[in-house]
């Protein structure tokens, strides 16, 4: 007996006869969990959502919700009978209906079945669409349309909510606020949700778990912290674009040696035999600035990120590595200056490939 709330088992996701994602398996254990799928454009994230919603059929494996098989080679539940809501990336608002009529579309489908109703007024207020309720879709901005589409999906009280790039059109200054409120609504009402996004920070914030889809496969499916700090492959590292891989040699149970950076200490995430040559993941927060250090590197670039600076430093072997420094740091370095790194380097998790 399948005890997971939602489960995808060995499914090849196809569109137009082309396989986009192969042999994918994942599950959501409990109602109310949120998972985020990350991956580059065109990799098949939307296809996965469409297949879960029943808009695309599958030819192998199975998709089940609340212990009921929705799609498999032999089973297929029509989209209208799945009680799954999908908020499309392109919003899909009915052009001949007002926003008010649009957001209430399908809201009464679970009337009287004991589902805890979401208060529409609350959602409308949180997503800040009160002023556009009587307008038509062509009279509102892309961001407003996206919020209206999101409201509609939330109000339908689905068993499973699918959100395809739900905040991609929303203004940056408003995005963080919406993210917080969205998470609050989803958690308060225990709405099981799968979110597809290209924004890793959004995924890390919203998701209880994150899946990374690369090269037609689900490469990693884990909690955001683990995905970030313990990427399980070079592909995931490259995709997250959050560090560089430097060559190193394992010299002990807790040590590595790099020709440019010297001795590096820490705990290995995976076991590596002493003497093996590995590639070590160096993330900007792994290195510490120290002007007095004898390990001095050239600054080749400097980015101001508000809360911090990211300095790009060049090693002797022409490798660029990045370092975070708090933006209130007492002094700044300029391009071509020397920049000291605390030596020996100590990294909490040594991720090597």
């Amino acid at each position: 007996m399948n005890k997971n709330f939602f489960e995808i088992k060995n499914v090849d996701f196809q569109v137009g006869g082309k396989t986009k994602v192969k042999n994918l398996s994942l599950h959501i254990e409990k109602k109310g969990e949120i998972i985020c799928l990350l991956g580059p454009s065109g990799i098949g994230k939307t296809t996965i959502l469409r297949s879960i919603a029943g808009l695309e059929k599958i030819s192998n494996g199975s998709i089940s919700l609340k212990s009921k098989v929705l799609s498999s080679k032999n089973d297929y539940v029509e989209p209208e009978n799945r009680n799954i809501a999908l908020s499309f990336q392109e919003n899909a608002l009915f052009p001949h209906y007002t926003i008010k009529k649009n957001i209430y579309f399908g809201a009464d489908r679970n009337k009287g079945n004991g589902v805890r109703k979401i208060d529409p007024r609350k959602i409308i207020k949180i997503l800040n669409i009160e002023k556009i309720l009587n307008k038509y879709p062509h009279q509102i901005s892309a961001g407003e349309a996206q919020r209206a589409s999101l409201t509609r999906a939330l109000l339908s009280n689905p068993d499973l909510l699918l959100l395809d790039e739900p905040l991609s059109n929303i203004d940056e200054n408003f995005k963080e606020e919406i993210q917080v409120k969205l998470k609050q609504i989803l958690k308060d009402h225990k709405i099981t949700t799968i979110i597809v996004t290209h924004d890793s920070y959004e995924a890390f914030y919203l998701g209880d778990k994150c899946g990374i889809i690369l090269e037609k496969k689900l490469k990693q499916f884990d909690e955001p912290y683990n995905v970030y700090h313990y990427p399980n492959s070079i592909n995931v590292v490259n995709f997250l674009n959050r560090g560089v891989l430097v060559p190193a040699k394992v010299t002990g149970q807790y040590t590595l040696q790099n020709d440019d950076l010297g001795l590096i200490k820490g705990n290995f995430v995976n076991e590596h035999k002493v003497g093996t040559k590995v590639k070590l993941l160096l993330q900007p927060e792994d290195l510490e600035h120290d002007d007095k250090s004898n390990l001095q590197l050239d600054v080749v670039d400097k980015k101001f990120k508000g809360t911090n600076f990211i300095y790009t430093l060049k090693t002797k072997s022409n490798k660029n590595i990045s370092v975070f420094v708090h933006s209130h740091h007492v002094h700044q370095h300029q391009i071509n200056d020397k920049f000291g790194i605390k030596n020996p380097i100590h990294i909490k998790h040594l991720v090597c490939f």
Partner: protein
Amino acid sequence: MKSFNIWYISSFLISLFVIIPVVTVFFSYFENTSDYSELLKNTFLFEYISNSLILLLGVLIMTLIIGVTTAYLVSFYSFPFSNFFKWALILGFAVPPYIYAYSLTAFFENYGTAYSILKSLFGDANYNKHIPKFDGMLGAILSISFSIYAYVYILTRASFYYQSNNLIELGKNLGFSKLKSLFKIIIPSARPAIVAGLSLVAMETLSDFGAVDFFSINTLTTAIYNSWLSFDDLAFSNQLSFYLLIFIFGLFVIEKFSRRSAKYHSPLQGGFKTRKKIKLYGLNSFFAFLLCFIIFFLSFIFPISQMLYWTIIYPKNFFDLNIYDLILNTLLLVSLSSIILIIFSFISNYGNRVSKSKILNFLTTISISGYALPGIILAVAYITFVAWFDNTIISYFEIQSIKKIFIGSILGLVLAYFVRFYSLSCNGIKSSYEKINKTLDETAYLAGYSKLKTFLNIHIPYLRSSIFFVIILISLEIIRELPITLILRPFNFETFATTAYIYASQDLLEAAAVPSLFLVLIASLFILLISRYILKEENE
């Protein structure tokens, strides 16, 4: 996964039905013909072909000049009544070529209206020799051109309308004069639309029967009619149809091709909304007004005045005509045809939408090719097919002949209209259907709506205005239509078009004026109702 369902079967049947006339013409090509055909081949066939070509060339040149010039003026310039002319210039479409031909003849003939006007102004004299005569080929070219130049005008104007402001400003930036900008930038970028308009004009011209018959010009169309009706040689009639069809399908392909390119002038490329018309002053403004007025006058006011004039001075014709019956007959044909066409267009379009099948899409494409079939060919081929079916299949089973059910009956007429106008209806619905993003259907499914509920609650309300547009368009075409109605109508069943034709063919032009006037007035009303759609205004 792709099973043969109701959508396949219905689309397949529609396509099969629409393709029947073409297949019939093709197979009849190999049948034995009478001596008449040999005689014709050796004598007049060349004349028929050359007449068709001269007529075609004349009409193409005239419609090109009239259509593009007027479209250019109303699209780019502001002058007195320019907004009025924008839609008034399509009213010429309400006057079918044969009715224009009656007016032209009535006005310029010996002792005609022009003579009466001169006489009342300047007294009795022999004005006849000074009044130009617009009959024969010239009359046919003028009649057809003024009646259908609107095809070029409408498509060119739409293309100009969507032309990016950047293009116009580019001309200014390069130091081009207005005329140079017109020929170097504006016209070349509207070329696909102009070619599409001209292809439609060419198809209509080659299909025309009423005007050429009235002016006694022997073209391939009249030859088809005569070889069947006068010489009872249906096979040769079909052979001639075959030649004409090849030519028309060539035009059909050109039109399709051009229209595809015309899509590039989409409003999405931006700029068109901000383009302001250039205000004309002084003589320029006067000449722009004058030119548009002359075209409007010649294409609409002139024929309608002539008909009105005759209706007033010969009121007996008005009271003799059973207008009530004619309106009822027209309503019957229009409502039956519209209902059937709309239903099948929905079946086909909805089937295509939900099944996403390439085969179904292909079948639909075949089924809309009917509009390239001239009415006369369609009618003759329809009769040929029913006769063949009756003589072979029905007589094999020894059951009662079906000829009476399908020929000379309302049913037969409606079926022929179906083939002829299916593309109008299907494409009309399709173009609006394509604007409904498929994710809207999916959103409805996910909100718990069944396919039927989605169709009724999402598609129908959204398509309401285009259904109205299609019904009006079909009605407009049916009341203008002559050859199919003439050949396939039941005995003693007349429409405004056939009544006008019968009177005119008996040289009773004064009597033809009343049904013609009614036809034009009703058609004008229809055009006004749908002018916003035709002109593709801001509401799109």
